[in-house]
């Protein structure tokens, strides 16, 4: 049945991605400072040269025309050329994407490891001291800016992935804690406790299945959180990844790079969320 629905689902995803690219490009195009170049302030340049500079991005002003041309190029494998770095976007991605994907993957995994397993004991027992300690620890990391965490990692000789993990884990902890404690208060779980079932069995067979749809949804959005954290961390800490590229492109209103990054983020986000939706629905169906 899901195989029949798959083509429709994929078509919906593709349309969403294309719409996202257009909306992203529109936001960049109409943001203040689009089409300006720092070189206009160079007093060595003549007035004529400055006028030529101002005209150099004229082709990008017609956003629909630009996006149409971009899509045509995309289907040929041409992602355009960065206006700020003067290099093909495809090459920039090839150089930077593996590092960022690695950091994000490790960051999400480590964030889940810390956050989820810190929250799990609270599904079984509500020791006040443990609650206060874990809430304080996660609260501290929640209150620290991603850039500060990133810099701290650099000073400590740590990896960017760990900084991403420290950004992700407090959110995973707070959501997981609430989801698991709520699931643990269901009547059938209380009944299982009363019958003397082993705590591990209660968690695996009774708490987790109830909490699974929400946890899978949380898994999907944790990828977005990690991607969002990667930008300031890579920018501040000078890790040459897509996050740093995004920051530079935003500062320079580099439309070719930003359109591609929007599409990339959309693809990753939709994929992660689709997978988490499918898993959540599969678990829900099994329970029924």
């Amino acid at each position, binding site marked *: 049945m899901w195989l029949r629905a798959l083509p429709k689902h994929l078509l919906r995803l593709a349309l969403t991605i294309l719409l996202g690219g257009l909306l992203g490009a529109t936001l960049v195009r109409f943001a203040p*400072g689009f089409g300006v170049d*720092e070189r206009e302030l160079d*007093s060595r*340049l*003549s*007035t004529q*040269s400055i006028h030529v500079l101002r005209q150099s991005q004229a082709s990008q002003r017609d956003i629909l025309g630009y996006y149409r041309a971009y899509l045509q190029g995309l289907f040929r494998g041409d992602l355009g050329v960065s206006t700020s770095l*003067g290099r093909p976007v495809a090459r920039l991605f090839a150089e930077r994407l593996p590092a960022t994907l690695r950091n994000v993957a490790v960051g999400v995994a480590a964030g889940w490891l810390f956050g989820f397993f810190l929250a799990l004991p609270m599904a079984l027992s509500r020791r006040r001291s443990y609650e206060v300690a874990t809430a304080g620890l996660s609260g501290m990391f929640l209150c620290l800016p991603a850039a500060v965490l990133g810099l701290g990692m650099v000073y400590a000789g740590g990896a960017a992935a760990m900084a991403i993990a420290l950004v992700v884990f407090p959110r995973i902890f707070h959501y997981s804690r609430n989801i698991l404690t709520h699931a643990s208060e269901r009547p059938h779980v209380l009944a299982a406790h009363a019958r003397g079932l082993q705590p591990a069995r209660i968690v695996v067979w009774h708490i987790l299945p109830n909490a699974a749809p929400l946890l899978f949804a949380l898994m999907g959005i944790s990828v977005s959180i990690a991607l969002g954290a990667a930008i300031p961390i890579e920018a501040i800490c*000078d890790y040459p990844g897509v996050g740093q590229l995004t920051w530079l492109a935003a500062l320079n209103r580099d439309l070719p790079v930003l359109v591609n990054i929007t599409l990339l983020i959309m693809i990753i986000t939709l994929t992660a969320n689709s997978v988490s939706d499918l898993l959540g629905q599969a678990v829900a169906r099994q329970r029924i």
Partner: protein
Amino acid sequence: MTRCRLVVLAFSVSCGLLISSARAQSGGELRFSLKSEPKTFDPMLADDDSSETVRYLTTGYLIRLNRQTQQLQPELASSWKVSNGGQTISFELRKGVLFSDGTPFTVEDVAFTMRKLMDPNLHSPFADPFRSAAGDVKVTVKNPNAIVLQFPAPVANLEQLFDGVPILSANSSQNDTAGLGPFVVAEHKAGSYILLKRNTHYWKHDAEGRALPYLDSVRLDIQQNRDLEILRFRRGETQLINTIEADNYDRLAADMPAAVHDAGPSFDTEQMWFNQVAAAPIPDYKKAWFRSQNFRRAISQAINRADMSRIAFNGHARPAAGLLSPANQFWFNQNLRAEETDIPGALKRLAADGFHLDKDVLRDRDGHAVEFSVITNAGNKVRERLAVLMQDDLSKIGVHLNVVTLDFPSLIERISRSFNYEACLLGLVNVDLDPSTQMNVWLSSASNHQWNPEEKSPATAWEAEIDRLMRAQASTTDNRKRKEYFDQVQQIVADQAPFIYLVNKNALSAISPSVHNAAPVVLRPQTYWNIDSLYITSTTAGIRP
């Protein structure tokens, strides 16, 4: 006998140490950071900081401005002569020079470079100053080592402009990358580093006849974060920091006093100006304020420049006297003095224009409270400090100043396209000594005439006078006369205050003690201007890294 041998051995080692500490050592890798990825490796188009660094290290020039003496010296040209009122320049080229790929350097390369430079489709900050009029450069080859260049019209400061013209190879198959500089680009990892290796065909030798550069390689790490740059310097991962902020300078000075250098006032200025564009979308009464000389001078008098130098720059700056820094020894008008803070004087000036204080609020003759905003670029902590200090200073004369920080593209759009701003606080980086390079600031028709760009005709008599004086100094080669004209420009600017100059910050840098022959200066590039003479030892004498 054993004791004798020990004495001899100790003596030999000491002599060795002395010799090695006096004689430059070849080898080693110098590392420092670039603030951003170079936008291009094309020497003709390199105009951002990072691209210019790579260009400086890999290309050769006919004439070089010695950054220490601020005098021109022969380089690839063994001699030159300017004639025809600055319209013609003749070069005698150095013999036996090779490009990095082994091809010989000839007059054809100079001709090729000049034709490329004068291509009207090339819009480059090195090319534009040569284009005093439309037309091509006439190239005459007198002999294999002599060339004459005749421009369509006299070019102000002609010889010094060649300090910015990299000579390209006309014949090399790798003509973009074959260079005449001390190093060549060997590796480039995007976003990470650029590795330059010694140019084995470099033409310079030291006094002992040894080939320069001494260094085997230079590694340029791409590092945007200033704090991380300091951290890596402390750890010994890099050996120099070309420009360092005052806060970081002091922190480093506390732990590594031998590594920091304050070369005194740089050529850079920090200044504020008011929007005087007639069509600007701001209220007319505000335009009237900003056009008033008394208003501008009063604002200038209310600002405490000494506090700015002390607090925003930790004392590593001094109050600015005008559009040039005193570091520009020849061109600076020695009669100018920085405006002293004078609150009563400021109020008196304002009263002359009908302003009055009404319960600590300054109002104009029509009763409007004097309130305006100043925009500056966000993320520059020092400039934000300057703006907040100014906000506090102006409150003493009843002016309410709103500090608005904007990201740079938004700011540029406001000051050059929409003119939707009231006042702007920015800095000017001066890379050249000669005032002709500022023509596009001072001419009223120019795009960088920031307070009122691209005027069809001068809006005021004093701007017309500045136009006349700037054109006059550009049309003569007599530097004495040029200085007279430009001194008058500086005086008019001080009187009229279209730019309110705040401070000249000092040229601060950091150089590891393991780097020798370094002589930090104020002209860019401050620390590695003589890179072909730098050499490295480890901090333990006699041991090569």
